[in-house]
């Protein structure tokens, strides 16, 4: 597609990269069909092609972002379904990430929008704050009915209260920096991204990961200094906090790579995995040593299911006769193109695996999207749950805490894929399945 940047504009490396992405797009429109917001809203402006055009126009003009553009870019889930569909290989992720940063730098949001984003950016990546906030939300839950029924702010607050779980598990000591030694002879050594929000919402995921890997002879390091991957800030266009978070992880993991050595950096929250795999790109214009180190980390970043396929997984007990509806998280299927590994592992574990119709469509979780765009998010949640129920499955398995939180509270229990794999290979039965299977 034609672009109209001046030579001066193209000297900015951010614009130069955006220009490359735009030049790859041939405006064929295939992406519109698989975009969740276009399917729901039926407006070119809420499709990837429309957003690409809005972004192109905004960047070419060099003027500050305006409400019209922000509205449509904000509605993008960053599910990246468009990237799976695109025949031309347009890197929409890099374009929309750049646009979000540009918006954050040039556009003044209404006060309540700024405040909410600041709070989310502050709280979610910090487990202690998050724990305190969820406790507060629990206390506020009974009063949700007092909020007005319309208006952006009340709707968002309702969404926040709905998403807050009714009870919180205690923090797990496994998530603190340490070396989890393998059982038996050591076959490999990996770093685990313990994560931030996930350690508060569902520490059982990391526990299952550590148990299974150590049983398979893998030493699992929770590196000192590593924390949030930076994705939450990154997707809100908050460039500096995102880079700071990423830098801390890169430093921590490079120290491990140069010390005890690492075969992989393992991520069991696919939203984070997509970002860690993109560190190399995010740091491409930083000082060469940081760019190199970021690229080294991205090169060994792997989803837990990719790694299990590589090292081999064998169940040790017969699976109960359960059908698992596999919910493909967008960050895993579109962001990382990991599609077969989770399903084939679940089948190896002995489960019957069902795939819902419209599996390519997002469940509406999308990081902070379900708190910032509650209306679209709840429509997508209902549509996803409908498709999952139609499979006739007994439970849902997913590889991303965001989707798990979004789909929770329904009659179908939701567990992480790794919990099922661990269970069938000697681990405990996931607590959420207690009513489904009596041990």
């Amino acid at each position: 597609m034609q672009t109209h940047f001046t030579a001066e504009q193209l000297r900015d490396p951010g614009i130069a990269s955006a220009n490359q992405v735009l030049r790859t797009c041939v405006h064929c429109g295939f992406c519109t069909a698989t975009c969740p917001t276009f399917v729901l809203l039926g407006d070119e402006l809420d499709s990837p092609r429309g957003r690409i055009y809005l972004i192109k126009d905004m960047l070419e003009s060099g003027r500050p972002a305006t409400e019209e553009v922000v509205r449509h870019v904000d509605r993008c889930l960053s599910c990246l379904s468009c990237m799976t569909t695109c025949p031309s290989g347009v890197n929409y992720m890099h374009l929309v990430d750049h646009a979000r940063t540009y918006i954050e730098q040039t556009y003044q949001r209404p006060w309540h929008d700024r405040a909410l984003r600041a709070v989310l950016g502050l709280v979610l990546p910090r487990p202690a704050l998050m724990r305190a906030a969820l406790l507060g939300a629990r206390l506020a839950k009974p009063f949700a009915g007092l909020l007005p029924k319309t208006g952006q702010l009340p709707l968002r607050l309702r969404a926040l209260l709905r998403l807050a779980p009714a009870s919180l598990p205690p923090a797990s000591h496994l998530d603190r920096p340490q070396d989890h030694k393998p059982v038996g002879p050591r076959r490999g050594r990996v770093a685990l991204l313990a994560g931030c929000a996930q350690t508060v919402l569902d520490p059982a995921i990391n526990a299952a990961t550590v148990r299974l890997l150590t049983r398979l002879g893998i030493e699992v390091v929770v590196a000192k200094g590593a924390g949030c991957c930076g994705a939450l800030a990154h997707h809100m266009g908050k460039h500096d906090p995102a880079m700071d978070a990423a830098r801390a992880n890169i430093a921590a993991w490079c120290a491990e790579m140069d010390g005890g050595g690492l075969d992989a950096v393992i991520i069991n929250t696919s939203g984070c995995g997509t970002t860690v795999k993109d560190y190399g790109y995010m740091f491409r214009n930083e000082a060469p040593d940081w760019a190199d180190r970021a690229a080294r980390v991205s090169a060994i970043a792997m989803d837990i299911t990719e790694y299990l396929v590589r090292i081999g997984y064998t169940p040790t007990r017969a699976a109960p006769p359960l059908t698992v509806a596999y919910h493909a998280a967008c960050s895993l299927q579109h962001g990382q193109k990991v599609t077969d590994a989770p399903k084939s592992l679940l089948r190896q574990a002995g489960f019957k695996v069902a795939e819902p119709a419209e599996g390519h469509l997002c469940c509406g979780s999308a990081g902070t999207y379900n708190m910032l765009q509650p209306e679209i998010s709840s429509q997508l949640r209902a549509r996803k749950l409908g498709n999952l129920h139609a499979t006739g499955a007994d439970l849902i398995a997913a590889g991303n805490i965001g989707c798990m939180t979004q789909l929770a509270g329904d009659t179908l229990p939701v567990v992480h894929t790794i919990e099922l794999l661990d269970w069938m290979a000697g681990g405990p039965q996931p607590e959420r399945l207690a009513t489904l299977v009596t041990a």
Partner: protein
Amino acid sequence: MIEQPEPKTDVLAKRDAIVAGLRHLLPASGVIAEPLRLKPYETDGLSAYRQVPLAVVLPETTEQVAAVMAFCHAQGVRVVPRGAGTSLSGGALPMADAVVLGLMRMNRILDIDYADRCAVVQAGVTNIGITQAVAQRQFFYAPDPSSQLACMIGGNVNMNSGGAHCLRYGVTANNLLGLKIVTVEGEILDIGGAYLDAAGYDWLGLLTGSEGQLAIVTEVTVRILRSPEGARAMLAAFTSNEIAGACVDSIIASGIIPVALEFMDRPAIHACEAFAHAGYPLDAEAMLIIEVEGSTAEQDDLLARIRDICAQHAPISLEVAKTAEQSLAIWKGRKGAFGAVGRISPDYLCMDGTIPTSQLPAVLRRIGEMSASYGLQVANIFHAGDGNLHPLIMFDANSAESFHKAEAFGADILRLCVEVGGCLTGEHGVGVEKRDLMGVQFTEIELDQQRRVKSAFDPGWLLNANKVFPLTAALRA
């Protein structure tokens, strides 16, 4: 930039009143009028041509479409209908004084009748959406344009779209039973229905392929067919475009009609393989995708006969898809071919001429020669079985010179198609792209007669007036 009809100054002058009037007829989100938000509607799948419209409306019901049309008719406002905006001939290119009427929100399946094998759907349902809705019962909707994932049935009707499998099943016109239309005055009419022939004139035939110039299509009744027992695709690789073209002609001349017979040349093979990982032969200069269907015995028999014919053209390789996954990947590559060319060139013009299959070798050779003399690369991807060419001319839209050369090269290809006994358009429609070449195909007398048909439906030339016909003095003034 293509010449546009002169905007009506009176319409431009009352822009605000027109927008206010439209806002009375539709929900708030259904009217777009802010300059920044109009910009993405300035073009469609042919992004070389652009024009920001006066406004965009997104109705959700036939009644809303009728209200918009009645209003625009009363105000003398031009209307440009738009489906998914995937047209490669600029069928949805706006005019400065026109309202773009987008049908994307009308995306519901209204009725499926398996006993009588038909489905009633709104105009904004995607082509593949129809097949997806009936696939569980082993039915499908046959015409399958490459953009079938995104393009909408209303647009298919207006362009009489084809697709790879039309060699066997016919184009849109052969798979339609009825339409609900809104006239330029805003009246709602039903044409045809769930039966095979209509009484009186063949209005369905006239409206199909009328490029949004006669009426707005809001609902479509299509035929659905039982899915075949099975299908298999074969890849045949050759050392030159001409040899592959001659092989196509031999297959068709032998009396065999495969369900699909598709051609791709070297640049196309490489671009599509990078996207679809289908195992295309990267050492070939040209490749045919030949698909047969039916029972296993029928498939085996046809494949054996086709294999014998191919063998007479010294193929590099002949390979039948081994798994259902490989078949899917083969078609994913072919269907994504135009977009995949975006991997090797920032821009392309996609031609759509049709020629007698016996002329394939000669025409492919001429296109190769023109490519060399214009200094622009071409990727050839097309429905070879019915002689429907899609040469993709690669150029750089950031260079005006490159674009003008591409336009001239494209016009030369289409003139060549007419010269060898073919025609300007196979399935993409005339749109704006081939508008000014209509004189190559038709005499002025013929064109005037066609214009009178449009005038009978739309005396004021309000519907999609910038397309299909070279601009008359009346539109220029």
